[in-house]
């Protein structure tokens, strides 16, 4: 039987993405296999508080807020929905931690690690590149570090995370089935900056 192997949604796109990156201007790359756990719980419930304690960071209650606890990031997705990002392979641990904290209270804890993948976009041209298809105001005044937003990038729904306003650097978290579309779209948009050669 063939050797076991895992394939991220953009596994076959590594070369395409690097070819469409331009040193010093724009860098596009997949961050595969990041653990992702979706948590639904009443933010005012004791359970929510216990989850926060267990994770080491309270579930952010401000729209678009990202809480960071060690290797974990907790993204606000909705008034009772969060997405926990963790290192590759940590999805089980995260679910165990949260479930333990729930202690049977009403909530939903769902492993969605493979449901989406992450594109990291970095470099001076990043905001311009994204604004070719993203209607959000990405100015640091409006979208600062550790802010996230669910919105549209071109014709795909994405979660956008601001990782760094200086470089700047953003994460585009996209549904696995849309990943190639978004990658193709980004690559095409980056051609203007001298990418795609060779």
């Amino acid at each position: 039987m063939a050797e076991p192997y895992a394939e991220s949604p953009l596994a076959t796109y590594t070369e395409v993405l690097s070819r469409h990156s331009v040193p010093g201007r724009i860098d596009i790359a997949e961050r595969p296999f990041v653990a992702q756990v979706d948590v639904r719980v009443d933010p005012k419930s004791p359970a929510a508080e216990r989850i926060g304690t267990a994770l080491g960071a309270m579930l952010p209650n401000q729209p678009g807020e990202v809480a960071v606890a060690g290797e974990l990031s907790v993204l606000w997705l909705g008034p009772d929905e969060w997405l926990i990002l963790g290192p590759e392979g940590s999805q089980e641990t995260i679910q165990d931690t949260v479930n333990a904290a729930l202690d049977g209270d009403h909530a939903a804890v769902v492993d969605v690690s493979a449901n989406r993948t992450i594109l990291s976009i970095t470099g001076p041209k990043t905001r311009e590149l994204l604004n070719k298809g993203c209607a959000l105001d990405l100015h640091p005044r409006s979208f600062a570090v550790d802010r996230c937003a669910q919105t549209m990038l071109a014709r795909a729904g994405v979660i956008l995370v601001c990782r760094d306003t200086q470089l700047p650097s953003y994460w585009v978290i996209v549904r696995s089935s849309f990943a190639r579309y978004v990658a193709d779209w980004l690559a095409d948009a980056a051609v203007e900056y001298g990418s795609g050669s060779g």
Partner: protein
Amino acid sequence: MMLIPCPWCGPRNEIEFHYGGQADVHYPSDPRSTSDEDWAHFLFFRDNPKGVFTERWSHAAGCRRWFTVHRDTVTNEIHPDDSASAARTVTR
């Protein structure tokens, strides 16, 4: 391109939303004892005012929450007095 005030995510472009039409159309408490006429009105008949309309939107590309706004159907202006809390309470 209207700027729709999602009470959670803030103002976003119209294309991020799903339109739900008239708000506060309640599901009959006991459908079995509802007459065909009343049932038809629940299913198909909606207000269609020229002026302020109390309507539902869902932030489909965002937090997926449904909410209520008051919009003028002539100017598309959305009533500024839509407080988040009011908007967040929504019924069909």
